[in-house]
């Protein structure tokens, strides 16, 4: 009751003192009872009545209490004003510090933000108040929409480093501000710091959500790397729960520790109670947060899905797939699986991984048959197959999806796709059926024109020309300017050609050219025109039209057809100069075309017919000059072969004068005396010496020798080898290949020579060196026509080295995937590898295939039959083995190495059957064959006979 005492001492009338005392007492009772407004009103009234400054100076606490009452009553403006008055009147009062703080708070709560800022700023230097001061200032600036100032304050809050919960709270706000100001690097840096100091973050879930939001916004702005960094900071649900559980445990341990200190007397009860009260509040808060967090679903799948999408947008499809793959494997039953699987298959489609895309589509349709993307995936399954050139699979998929998704919004595309798949396979009955289905089911469909035209086209391909004419005309009538109008015109001509209406074909073509000048299928039109002329034996017109056709052709198919048909027509006219010129022009205009080699052949023939082989050679040399040093131009070796063939032919002697020739002929016919003959031939040139083509070849190649690099020089040697082959100088051929192997590195050789030299070395038994040539061929020329030499050769080397499994892989690639020049050898190699691996049924099948393929008749047949014997022998079926061996040395005796081996193996099998006499008989028969005398098996046979005491 000091106030009463003060009032009593005040210079006030007694009655007023009594009144004021009563007012004060009533107001204070109200204050103690929590009736703040009443207390504030009463105390304000009291204060208003004390007018004497000296008396006022004595009732400082009353002024303070007025402010407190207003504050507690949430009358903040009044509280702020009251505290202001208090501070003005009583700046040195012991409660001045609390009053300043209360004034600041009241000002803030009264939303007087401008005023609140400096009030709180004054507390920045007070360690215990620093965080609160800065946080409230930041809130004030936020309310005043002063971002820059808000950020500056929050940045001060972060100094020197984040170590308190209030700083973490401020950091969350600052991060959002940075982001909105496009200061994403700062946002991320602060986020990382916060995550590194997770212990001070009160609400990890809020941090996680902010992190995801930041990541999303970065992704939207295409700051992919930063978005991913943000997403990686997100904690998993387990981590959040663990964190929160551990935090609660740590707080509880602190409470217990404090109680232990209390018992030990190190701290007093007040300190402990106060600290533990705060800790218990923190535990309670943490438990509430934990309860909330436990109910929340796992957010990680959503984050991983986002990461996958960011990688996809960034163009890093493999990384996207890796992310989606993780999601599907680790969170298999979440709602994110469907979009992840869909996104994954889109990635595979983008990467052109056809098999994978198909597999993913299948998986999607199995796991999400009614998923939001099921229709699109169903269509994609067929479309990707069609695009990859797998029409059979495409047809299967389209058909299946049409059955499984009868309501698909992509039904039109599915039916059309199915029709197109059949068309690609040449199954035109089926394709037409699908196009007609489309026309029936979708009479106003968006692809109506396509379906109509393709239906007509199918009819053409089925050879139903009359019906096709009708369909095509119907199309042209409906779509005179349609996308297929030009093609329809062409197909109509084809139908008329089939009906032998050649005149109409020619006339229609003329009209067509006027209607579609410079069209890309002009080549086809000229070709069918030429066909019509040719059918009427109008060779000149046909030749001219074919020449137009190949010049205007937009596909190789038309070009090749027209070019060589033109040649035939000119030949029919006997116009060899025209043949030569036409092909020369072609070669000049298309020097890199695949048909150049064939064209050169025709030029050579034409020039020879004209008696001008030198011109043919000159043309080949011109072509070779361009490409001699380019290893990938495989036509070079073929042209060199042609040149060798031309050089191999003795040049025709110059023609004799007519009389002389008659005299010589007459003399020869009548066996006239030598004198008459001699007179008759006196002017004839002497018989030419034997022709040596090698100097001719050398002379022809001389201009090339000057410009040849190592690749070129090797090729020139090859030309010489080819000439030796033509001259059956096999030893010289071997020498040249030895030189090629010795004097040139694999890097210097063209793929053709790598193949041939590799085979040469293999035959000689130099497997190590051969392997290098084959490996270079495989690595450096994956598109070569001779690539299968590499796989076949390496297969042989592997098999010889006891690596049957590796050999099988290599032979399979050569025989099945490449299936080119070495298909026969590779098939035999594959069979041998299977034999080595004990896979007898598969091996037998392949050996039988080799043995029975007519086109492969020769040594490989002997080998295949021999191995069939080996196969039986390995399984202990000796009679069957003997039968095969006997077939070798009876039916294929000209293949001496195999015959030799077959004799010995046959004898061995007889011996195993206990039929020594038959075995001896075989070996003696073998020894009687003089052609086999130098084979190692013959020596083996002698030794066996010695051992058996049957030496002859």
């Amino acid at each position, binding site marked *: 009751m000091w106030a009463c005492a003060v009032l009593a001492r005040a210079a006030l009338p007694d009655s007023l003192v009594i009144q004021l005392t009563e007012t004060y007492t009533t107001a204070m009772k109200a204050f103690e009872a929590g009736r703040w407004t009443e207390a504030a009103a009463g105390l304000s009234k009291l204060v208003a009545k004390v007018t004497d400054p000296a008396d006022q100076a004595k009732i400082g606490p009353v002024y303070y209490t007025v402010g407190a009452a207003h504050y507690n009553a949430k009358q903040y403006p009044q509280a702020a004003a009251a505290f202001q008055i208090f501070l003005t009147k009583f700046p040195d009062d012991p409660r001045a510090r609390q009053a300043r703080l209360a004034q600041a708070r009241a000002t803030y709560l009264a939303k007087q933000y401008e005023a609140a800022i400096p009030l709180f700023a004054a507390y920045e230097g007070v360690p215990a108040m620093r965080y609160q001061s800065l946080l409230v200032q930041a809130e004030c600036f936020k309310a005043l929409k002063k971002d820059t100032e808000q950020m500056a304050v929050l940045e001060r809050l972060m100094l020197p480093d984040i170590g308190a919960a209030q700083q973490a709270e401020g950091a969350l706000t600052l991060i959002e501000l940075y982001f909105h100001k496009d200061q994403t690097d700062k946002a991320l840096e602060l986020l990382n710091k916060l*995550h590194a100091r*997770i*212990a001070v973050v009160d609400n990890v879930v809020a941090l996680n959500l902010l992190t995801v939001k930041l990541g999303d916004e970065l992704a939207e702005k295409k700051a992919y790397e930063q978005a991913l960094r943000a997403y*990686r*900071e*997100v*904690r*998993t649900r*387990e*981590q959040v729960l*663990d*964190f929160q559980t*551990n*935090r609660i445990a*740590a707080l509880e*341990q*602190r409470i*217990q*520790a404090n109680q*232990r200190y209390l018992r030990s007397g190190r701290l007093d009860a007040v300190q402990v109670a106060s600290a533990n009260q705060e800790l218990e509040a923190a535990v309670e808060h943490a438990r509430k947060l934990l309860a909330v967090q436990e109910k929340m679903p796992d957010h*990680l799948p959503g984050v991983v899905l986002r*990461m996958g999408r960011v*990688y996809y947008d960034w163009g*890093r*499809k*493999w*990384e996207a*797939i*890796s*992310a989606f*793959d*993780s999601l599907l494997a680790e969170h298999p039953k979440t709602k994110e699986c469907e979009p992840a699987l869909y996104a994954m298959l889109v990635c595979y489609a983008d*990467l052109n*991984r056809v098999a*994978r895309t198909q597999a993913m589509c299948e998986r999607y349709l199995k796991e999400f048959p009614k998923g939001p993307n099921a229709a699109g995936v169903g269509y994609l399954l067929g479309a990707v197959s069609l695009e990859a050139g797998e029409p059979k699979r495409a047809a299967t998929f389209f058909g299946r999806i049409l059955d499984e998704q009868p309501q698909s919004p992509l039904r039109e595309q599915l039916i059309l796709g199915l029709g197109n798949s059949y068309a690609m396979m040449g199954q035109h009955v089926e394709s037409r059926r699908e196009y007609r289905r489309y026309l029936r089911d979708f009479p106003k469909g968006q692809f109506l024109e396509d379906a109509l035209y393709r239906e007509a086209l199918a009819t053409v391909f089925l050879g139903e020309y009359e019906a096709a004419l009708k369909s095509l005309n119907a199309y042209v009538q409906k779509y005179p300017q349609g996308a297929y109008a030009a093609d329809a015109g062409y197909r109509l001509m084809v139908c008329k050609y089939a009906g032998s209406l050649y005149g109409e074909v020619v006339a229609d073509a003329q009209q067509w050219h006027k209607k579609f000048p410079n069209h890309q299928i002009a080549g086809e039109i000229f070709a069918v025109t030429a066909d019509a002329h040719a059918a009427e034996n109008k060779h000149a017109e046909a030749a001219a039209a074919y020449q137009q056709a190949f010049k205007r052709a937009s596909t190789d198919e038309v070009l090749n057809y027209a070019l060589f048909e033109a040649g035939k027509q000119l030949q029919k006219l006997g116009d060899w100069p025209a043949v030569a010129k036409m092909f020369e022009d072609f070669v000049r205009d298309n020097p*890199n075309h695949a048909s150049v080699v064939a064209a050169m052949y025709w030029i050579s023939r034409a020039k020879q017919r004209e008696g001008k082989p030198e011109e043919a050679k000159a043309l080949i040399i011109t072509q070779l000059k361009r490409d001699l040093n*380019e290893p*990938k*131009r495989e036509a070079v070796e073929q042209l060199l072969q042609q040149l060798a063939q031309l050089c191999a032919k003795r040049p025709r002697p110059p023609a004799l004068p007519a009389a002389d020739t008659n005299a010589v002929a007459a003399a020869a016919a009548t066996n006239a005396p030598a004198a008459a003959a001699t007179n008759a031939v006196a002017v004839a040139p002497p018989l030419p010496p034997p022709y040596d083509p090698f100097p001719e070849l050398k002379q022809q190649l001389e201009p090339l020798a000057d410009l040849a690099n190592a690749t070129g020089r090797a090729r020139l040697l090859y030309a010489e080898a080819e000439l030796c082959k033509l001259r059956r100088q096999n030893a010289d051929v071997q020498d040249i290949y030895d030189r090629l192997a010795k004097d040139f590195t694999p890097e210097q050789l063209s793929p053709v020579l790598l193949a041939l030299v590799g085979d040469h070395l293999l035959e000689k038994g130099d497997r190590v060196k051969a392997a290098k040539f084959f490996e270079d061929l495989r*690595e*450096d*020329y*994956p*598109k070569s026509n001779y690539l299968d030499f590499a796989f076949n050769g390496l297969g042989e080397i592997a098999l010889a080295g006891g690596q049957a499994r590796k050999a099988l892989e290599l032979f399979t690639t050569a025989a099945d995937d490449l299936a080119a020049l070495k298909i026969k050898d590779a098939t035999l190699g594959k069979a041998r590898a299977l034999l080595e691996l004990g896979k007898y049924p598969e091996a037998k099948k392949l050996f039988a295939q080799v043995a029975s393929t007519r086109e492969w008749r020769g040594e490989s047949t002997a080998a295949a039959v021999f191995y069939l014997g080996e196969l039986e022998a390995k399984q202990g079926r000796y009679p069957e083995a003997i039968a095969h061996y006997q077939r070798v040395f009876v039916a294929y005796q000209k293949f001496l190495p195999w015959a030799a081996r077959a004799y010995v193996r046959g004898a061995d099998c007889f011996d195993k059957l206990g039929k020594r006499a038959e075995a001896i008989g075989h070996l003696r028969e073998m020894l009687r064959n003089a052609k086999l005398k130098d084979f190692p098996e013959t020596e083996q046979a002698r030794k066996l006979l010695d051992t058996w005491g049957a030496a002859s």
Partner: protein
Amino acid sequence: MRSLALLLTLTLAAHAQSLVFKDGKVLAVGKDLRRQGDMLFTLVELSGAAPGQPARTGEVGYAVAQIARLELPPPALLKTAPELLAQGKAAEALAQLDPALANQVTFRDLPGSWWAETALLKLRALNQLGREAEVEPLAQQISTCAVHPDQPRAAQAQVALALLRKGQTARALPIAVIVLKESKEPATRAVASVVKGGCLMEKKDWEGALLAYLKVPVFFPQDKLLLAQALLGAGRAQFELSDLEAAKGTLNELKKVCAGSPEAEQVEAELQKIQRREKALAEPK
């Protein structure tokens, strides 16, 4: 995702280490703590023999069975050793780790011991130094002394890595797969991903290898040593899959983010392989 750091936020006694008994009592202990069989001994302060007499110290023993856990401050090398390992200085790291392990070995089976965590670092060092033969036995010991459920898995991941380095992919792969299935720790999963990638490369499962390797840059790019291995493997797998552009991109990224690593030194050779392949696939001039 961020690693869960072990919580060390206890602001307890001024003393650095304590024994916490099963009955809740806590006893501060000093560096004199020692073990003998099933007993732990420590020096404690006793009052004078009589009033006025000076305080004495005496060694008191406690049965290990009474101990709930040790509360020991984490050794500084748990920070320094990983930094050394990240710099490729495995030998230096090992020089710190071996004595620490020797000091801690008698307490390794007690909850709160740092032995297992320290031993895991040693496993990493051994793998880096190519001392694969020593990895499995140590991993076995860790499994019996683990204080955190992921420690045995982390040890197994290192075993798998050692097996991969020895070429024993048939043994390494199933271990890596199990670790990936069971572990949630990013660092452990990163090692297992690299192992899985390496094993699948051996089996020529290029795509499987690629997806395994890419888990590291996608989810765990922090560990630069593992990142380098993963990016090199991924680049090679992309080459085998004929995605040459992607392979170049991956290898160039390796050069950029892991410059100076042994893997970065191999990048040029790999890029030359790609160049050779591009030349092989190019159309003739």
